[in-house]
């Protein structure tokens, strides 16, 4: 159906031309699912976008052919030879080949209703006026599993959840019934349970509409779930291609083997059960946090109180790592922010044991009295791009907590810390944009640790990183924990990471703790229905186990 031969894609950068895709060959068989796997920068997205000539102003196809045969008996077109702005490629986009992107909230316009944006595809390709296609749009929304489609058709993207948005984006890509759907990391920005739903939906649509699917991802677990064929890319080249069984069981290339090795293995062999549990460093007792929001239509504005955290209690033993898991919106981030007192909890206690043994309740302390604890409880954020001030050098970023607290010899301590997190001393005078995502996260960790904290709250600290970088950062955190005797509260939606690094797990669902225990207890023998549903949604990186497991749903 699609044959890519010796494709080369270049981007014009500040330092001259960058070859993002360098001689890629791949073949997409009709009716099958091809997964393109690789880390960021491997050229997998550029390859996908080159097919539709959507490389943006800086990028262009520098060579090669993309031979496309929309139907088994139709003529072959070389998409690479078409003018990126011309009518010929526009007729292919959305009609023959649909495209779904990673971030559904960013890839849909925030100021147009989803119905408007979907109807537009029909207006462009079939000349149907939006008011005549409304019924069809509603049907398509139903088709992708959006409940109350006749209302949602007039909704704006920000009124929908992430999963619903991605469903709307899929409806948009499919409404003209293209024969090929390219999905560029469509589930990366979603929760594990939502991801499972979207994967199921794509598989079902592919089957019922007789589509071919090209799926770009960095997650080998997802690959094992859905792929027929796999292409592994690295640095703009294909390093391995084959059926999913071949690639997983008999990988030929070292890089593929290395990728497979980073996969967290589901070994629930319990860690040596601890002796007497150490004193809790932090005790959270019946913590509540309520937000006021307004919602409703234009005419009937309702004020609602949303209880993001509704009476949560658990302990964080000193020197351990406690994982806090749940879907987005379950209140885990809010809880983390309450502990660092970025928020003032509505009710409850946050009992923190000082190094002299005295216990203070952080929940009610006024701002000034909190200052010493702000040095002892620190936070690492999810987004290593957004959480560093682009106008400050790394030295200033890391040193700021010290400057604020009026410590001397700031420079020496900052330099020592930056080396401790594995960055060169020369990094101090450079700005954050000069670093990769993984390096930036090291900077964020250095900033958190510079004031010699006792408790670090890592809020999705590795979620935005590639798998191999993620491994490095987790190793670094573990090493620092041993050296400095840190306690971690590890907030994450990624169960495999939590399983790997945590001693205890707390599972949250809609602001409540539904299950708590050691990793072995919770992962090995989940008691609560929600925990079981959550675990069943995690993609298992073994294609042989596909369809052997039941996907559990939970609604509480």
């Amino acid at each position, binding site marked *: 159906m699609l044959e890519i031969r010796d494709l080369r894609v270049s981007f014009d950068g500040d330092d001259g031309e960058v070859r993002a895709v360098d001689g890629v060959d791949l073949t997409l068989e009709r009716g099958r699912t091809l997964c393109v796997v690789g880390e960021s920068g491997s050229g997998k997205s550029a390859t996908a976008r080159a097919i539709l000539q*959507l490389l943006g102003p800086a990028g262009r196809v520098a060579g090669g052919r993309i031979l496309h045969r929309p139907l088994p008996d139709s003529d072959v077109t070389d998409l690479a030879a078409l003018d990126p702005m011309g009518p010929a490629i*526009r007729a292919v*986009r959305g009609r023959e080949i649909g495209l779904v992107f990673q*971030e559904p909230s960013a890839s849909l*316009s*925030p*100021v147009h209703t989803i119905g408007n944006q979907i109807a537009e*595809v029909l207006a*462009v390709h079939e000349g149907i006026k939006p008011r005549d296609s409304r019924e069809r749009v509603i049907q398509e929304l139903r088709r992708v599993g959006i409940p109350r489609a006749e209302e949602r058709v007039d909704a704006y993207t920000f009124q929908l959840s992430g999963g619903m948005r991605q469903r709307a984006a899929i409806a948009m890509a499919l409404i003209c019934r293209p024969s090929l759907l390219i999905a560029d990391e469509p589930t990366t920005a979603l929760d594990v349970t939502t991801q499972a739903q979207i994967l199921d939906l794509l598989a079902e649509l592919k089957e019922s509409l007789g589509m071919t699917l090209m799926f770009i991802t960095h997650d080998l677990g997802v690959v094992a779930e859905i792929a027929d064929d796999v292409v592994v890319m690295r640095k703009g080249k294909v390093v391995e291609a084959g059926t999913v069984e071949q690639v997983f069981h008999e990988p030929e290339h070292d890089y593929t083997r290395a990728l497979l090795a980073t996969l967290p293995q589901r070994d629930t062999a319990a860690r040596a059960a601890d002796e007497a549990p150490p004193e809790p460093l932090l005790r959270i007792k019946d913590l509540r946090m309520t937000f006021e929001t307004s919602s409703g239509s234009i005419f009937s504005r309702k004020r609602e109180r949303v209880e993001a955290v509704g009476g949560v209690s658990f302990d964080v033993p000193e020197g351990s790592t406690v994982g806090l898991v749940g879907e987005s919106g379950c209140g885990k981030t809010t809880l983390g922010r309450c502990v660092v007192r970025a928020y003032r909890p509505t009710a409850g206690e946050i009992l923190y044991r000082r190094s002299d043994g005295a216990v203070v309740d952080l929940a009610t302390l006024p701002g000034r009295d909190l200052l010493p604890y702000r040095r002892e409880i620190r936070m690492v954020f999810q987004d290593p791009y957004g959480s560093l001030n682009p106008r400050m050098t790394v030295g200033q970023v890391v040193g700021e907590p010290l400057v604020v607290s009026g410590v001397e010899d700031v420079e020496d301590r900052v330099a020592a810390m930056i080396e401790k997190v594995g960055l060169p001393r020369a990094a101090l005078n450079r700005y954050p944009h000069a670093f990769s995502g993984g390096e930036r996260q090291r900077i964020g960790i250095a900033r958190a640790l510079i004031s010699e904290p006792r408790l670090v709250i890592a809020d999705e600290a590795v979620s935005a990183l590639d798998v191999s970088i993620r491994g490095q950062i987790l190793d670094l955190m573990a090493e620092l924990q041993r050296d400095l005797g840190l306690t971690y509260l590890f907030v994450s939606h990624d169960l495999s990471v939590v399983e790997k690094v945590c001693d205890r797990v707390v599972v949250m669902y809609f602001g409540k703790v539904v299950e708590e225990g050691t990793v072995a207890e919770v992962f090995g023998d989940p008691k609560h229905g929600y925990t079981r549903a959550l675990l069943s949604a995690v993609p298992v990186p073994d294609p042989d186990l596909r369809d052997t497991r039941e996907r559990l749903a939970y609604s509480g």
Partner: protein
Amino acid sequence: MIRFVLLRLLHVVPILVAISIVAFFIIQLPPGDFLSTHVAALEGRGESLDPAYIQALRERYGLGDPFWIQYWKWITNILLHGDFGQSFEFRRPVAGLIGERLPLTLTLGIATLVFTWAVALPAGIYSARKQHSWIDYAISGIGFVALAVPAFLTALVLAYLGFEFFGQSVGGLFSPEYANAPWSLGKLADLLQHLWIPVVVLGLAGTAGIIRITRANLLDELHKPYVVTARAKGLPEGRLTRKYPVRIALNPFISTAGWHLPSLFDGEIIVAQVLALGTIGPLLLQALKSQDMYLAGGIILIVAVLTVVGTLLSDILLAVADPRVRFGKA
């Protein structure tokens, strides 16, 4: 929406009260009053006035009263009778003075606004679409010059050019023969002939500013994923640019659109003075110089109220245009 508008209106009331007090306070700030200035001027010329007559004037205008009483008299007359008081200098009602200059002022203001937007938006959008082309550089270069040159200087240069090459009379909005003539087609044609200089002068800096902002906003939006999505649907470039990124890039303008309301009214005072335009701006300058407090106060109050009303209109417009604002998610 209605609720939103009502709430905003409620917010506006105390602001208006505060603004009127501040306006009155400002015109009271300079030492002395109109009468003292007037008497001093007369005495400087060796004349003198009967102190009893001065006292009579003083009482008539309430000049001896405390601040709050003067303010109360002033504001209640405006609110209840539309009476902004008497101009000391012109010895005529302030409302009349402002009213006779209003049509010209609005004509000029609206013409400038239309010119600014008609030039700036297409230029800004084009500049962003063709970033790094020579046309982009040319538009940007001209824009920077236009921003940097003071408007009164442009006014002088253009007036000189108009006089030297087109034989136009310098200054004013009319040729001498039409200046005091009643309205006719000839007078209208004459006005249009003269209007372009002040419109270009007044609009130039604003145009350049809007081009820069449009270009910068649009450059941010053009590379957003939703634009790629629209392209992936097969939309033609022009149509998708107009529908998606331009729509969002316009938001900052919608939220400041109301600020043009007061500038429609007082224009660019210095430029109007240089070009001897019969608009309200020079009237304010003159009133301030001669401490003609009711005239100055009236104009300042109107400008201030228009600013508040303009901001209110902007807020409402933005809520209409952007669902994120309407649903409180921005």
